[in-house]
Structure formats: structure tokens, C-alpha cells
């Protein structure tokens, strides 16, 4: 069950029904802690509200003129059309795209076909007499590999 002290915020926000409100008021008269919380908030608001708010030194026409002046610059114009969510999504998309482009050549190198090409190109032409992958047709190359890469 909810303790009377837990109803403090609901009481302060006027969310208690009349019956609950009467109950809480009687609780407030005996609970030092709740009373202290209530006084603190009331007095804090009273103090802050008592603060004189001086009039701004800025002239209204100056404020308007400066706003139009700043508003005309291209960077402000650009930023005004770039909603934060759109900007972040665009940036994320760009990062993904760049990562993909960066990883693409490496994938080609490490893929099965790429590895085969690399190995073939690494074969010393002095052994085969020629660059096997470049000069042999697919059938002959297959035969050559089956024979253990014997020199023709």
C-alpha cells in the first residue's frame, strides 16, 4: 500500500481526489518531513520570483535587424533546412557507403577467385617458362594444375 508521504507529488500537482486530499492534509500537519518539503519548494519559488528581472538592454529593432542579418547567411540557411534527424541519417549512410567502398577491393583480393588469381600470378615464370594464369587457356590450366604444375 502507498504510504501517505509518497503522495506528496500528486498532492502538489492537485491530482488527489477530495477525499485523498483531506487525508493528505491531515498527514501534512503531523509529518515533519512532508511539511519541510512543501515549505522548501514554496519558499524557493517565492525567492526566485522575488528576483527583479531587469529589462534587456537590447533594442527590439536591433534584435530584429540582427536576426535578419544573421538569417541571410548561407550557412544558417543551409542548417535551417537540415533537420537533425536527416543530418544524422545522411552522415550514417555516408559512413556505411564509404566503409563498403573501402572494403570492396580487399574482399576481391581475399575472395576464392581473387586468391586463385594471386597464387597463379605469384608462380615464378622461370619455373613455368611463362605466366601460367595469363597464357594458358582454362582447360590447359586445369590439366597443368592436375599434373602438379609440371613444366610443359
Amino acid at each position, binding site marked *: 500500500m502507498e504510504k501517505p508521504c509518497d503522495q506528496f*507529488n500528486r498532492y*502538489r*500537482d492537485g491530482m488527489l481526489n477530495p477525499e485523498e486530499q483531506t487525508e493528505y492534509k491531515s498527514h501534512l500537519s503531523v509529518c515533519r518531513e512532508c511539511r*519541510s*518539503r512543501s*515549505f*522548501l*519548494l*514554496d*519558499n*524557493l*519559488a*517565492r*525567492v*526566485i*520570483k*522575488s*528576483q527583479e*528581472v*531587469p*529589462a*534587456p*538592454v*537590447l533594442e*527590439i*529593432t536591433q*534584435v*530584429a*535587424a*540582427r*536576426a*535578419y542579418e*544573421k*538569417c541571410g547567411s548561407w550557412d*544558417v*540557411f543551409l*542548417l*535551417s533546412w537540415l533537420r537533425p534527424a536527416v543530418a544524422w541519417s545522411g552522415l550514417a549512410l555516408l559512413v556505411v557507403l564509404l566503409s563498403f567502398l573501402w572494403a570492396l577491393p580487399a574482399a576481391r583480393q581475399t575472395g576464392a577467385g581473387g586468391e586463385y588469381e594471386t597464387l597463379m600470378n605469384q608462380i615464378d615464370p622461370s619455373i613455368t617458362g611463362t605466366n601460367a594464369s595469363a597464357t594458358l587457356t582454362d582447360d590447359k590450366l586445369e590439366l597443368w594444375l592436375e599434373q602438379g604444375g609440371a613444366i610443359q
Partner: protein
Amino acid sequence: MTDSTDSILIEAAVNGDMTAFAELVERYRPGVWGMVHRTLGNSSDGEDAFQETFMRALVYLPRFDRRRPFGPWILRIASNYCIDQLRRRKTRKYRLWSDLSESEEENILKTMSTEPNIEEMLQKNPHKYLEVAQFLLSRLKPRRRMAFILREIEGNSYETVAAILGVPEVTARVRVCRARNDLERRFREYLATLEGGIKNGKAV
């Protein structure tokens, strides 16, 4: 819905009529100025915030939905700016340049939490009370602080607080509730520190 005269002024301002925009600034000056001053305190920061709020308002004015009221919209721009500024400020763990003695602070804090109405004492020492109150407020997280000021100080309804902060009403309620709890906790810690006789200027 936006006031019909506001709507005319907005239309004119979007079309480059500076006088119409100046009229809008004049209309919403008290609300915006009061909010930035109470949140940021310092007058030069307040003036910057005031200028920046209206500059941003002018930039976004073409996209403003005129079926909605203009007041909460401009206050939301101001509150977002103030929250950004509060986040950038380095949080002070203690007050600097205070001429209050520990016993004075302790008395003020005790008075604030035990007296139902401090009007009379406040009139005698407004600056001292204000210094302590602003210090307690400054310890709140920016979003909670803004919600607390709008609700507890300015006395707005939760519907208005939510509209200004651009959040659902339930979020506004949660922020205010947490601000109250934080404030009370800070208050107790601060009082305990003073009662413990730790010199002013040490951790709170």
C-alpha cells in the same frame, strides 16, 4: 491556434518585413526574457540567449505550423537554447565569491524549510536568500531545472510545460517530480555539510 494578429505578423516577417518581426519580438519579449533570465541568471548570457532565440525563430518561421500557438513555440526555442548553454557550463561543486558565512547559510536553509512563509525575512535580505536559492537550482540537471522553473516558478500547467519542452505531458511530470526530489536531496546534503562544520567552498 495562433492569434490572428500573430499570424499576420508572421506572414509579413517571413516576407521580409522587419517591422512586423520587431512587433513579434516586442509581444513575446517578457516571456522569453523572463525565462532566459531565470534559467541562465547572468545578464550577458541572458542577452545572448534572447538575441539567439529570435534569430532562430526567424530562421524556422517559414516552417512554423500556424495552427499552433506561437507562444509555446518561441519559448521552446528559448528553452532548448538555455538547456544547451547549461550543459556547456561547467558544473560548480560549490559557490565562489560568496560573502555569506556558514551560519548565515545554515539559517537561511533552515528558515526556508521550516517557515511556511518567509516574505518578511526575504524583504530584509533578498540577495542572501536569492543566492542560496539560485545555488540550489543550479545543482539540478538542465532538463529537470527547466521543467522545474516552468512549473514551480512560472506556475504553468503541465500541458503548457510539455508544449514548451516539446515532450509528452507524462515526461514533463516525471521531470518536475525528479527535480523536486533532487532539490530536496541536495538541500539535505548541503545542510548536513554546513552543520558538520565543513568550511564553505568544499564539496556539497
